[in-house]
């Protein structure tokens, strides 16, 4: 938990840089090419693409889950696993 807001409502340059570098490190193919600061616009574009690709993955996974669930047997061992997860 690295929130270091100085005072309520004030955001310093340092905090903006921190946010931006966090976004940078979050993206899957972030390469440090010499300078550690990427162009902000490029970062925003890659962030957009990243989030869009995550949306597509969720959509694809929903497809597969829908397929799997249509053939699910209620008394199978899988149901046991699911129930044990719920109990923890």
């Amino acid at each position, binding site marked *: *938990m*690295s*929130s270091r*807001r100085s005072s*309520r*409502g*004030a*955001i310093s*340059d340092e905090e*903006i840089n921190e*946010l*931006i570098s*966090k*976004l940078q490190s*979050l993206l899957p193919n972030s390469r440090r090419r010499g300078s550690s*600061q990427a*162009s*902000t*616009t490029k970062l*925003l*574009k890659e*962030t*957009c693409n*990243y*989030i*869009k690709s*995550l*949306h597509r*993955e*969720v*959509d694809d*996974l*929903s*497809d*597969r*889950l*829908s*397929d*799997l*669930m*249509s*053939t*699910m*047997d*209620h008394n*199978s*061992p*899988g*149901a046991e*696993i*699911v129930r044990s*997860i*719920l109990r*923890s």
Partner: protein
Amino acid sequence: MASARGVLGVQGGGGGGSGRFKRALLRNLIIGLRKGGVASREMGFRERKDAIKRAADAALASARGAAPCWSRSLAADVVAQQHRSSGTANSSGECCKAPPPSPRKMIVCKKILRRSLRRPRPGNATTSKKYGAGVVARAMLMRKRTSVLKEIVPGGKALDVCTLMAETLDYAVSLKAQVDVMQLLVRILQEQNAIALEKQ
């Protein structure tokens, strides 16, 4: 921004959220899927898929809590969709009406804008000294990028740029956790199906 503490709170270990967050996600997802009756044989493919997506979004928003704006906005979207699919008319009002940006926030947004403009282009050291068409073009590009981001992040339209950045970060981390949890669920069900087939 008092909410910033909550907004950055999901980043535990590694990319894709903390283990505790993912466990809560998985639990919420399974509960939500059972509530949605997705294992019933009478459901059509499309209906089941929509129910799964809704359960996944609801699980994400409820596991994340009400701290970030995107989470509240997503939860409201899920409720609105449920009402739509069940046919009941219900006007769900905007839940993320951010207050108009205070003067301080306007200054901060300009800081972000200036930061992108100040960066010298490689190979051209004099750009930062000139104020010309290049600077204006970059400002327009920034605006275009942030507007795309506002469409993608739930509830982003009501936010100013600096809040949007923090929300985007939190949303991306949480989305990744949702993807991981759904992948795990797919593997569990696949293995379960394989075991069931072997027994026959």
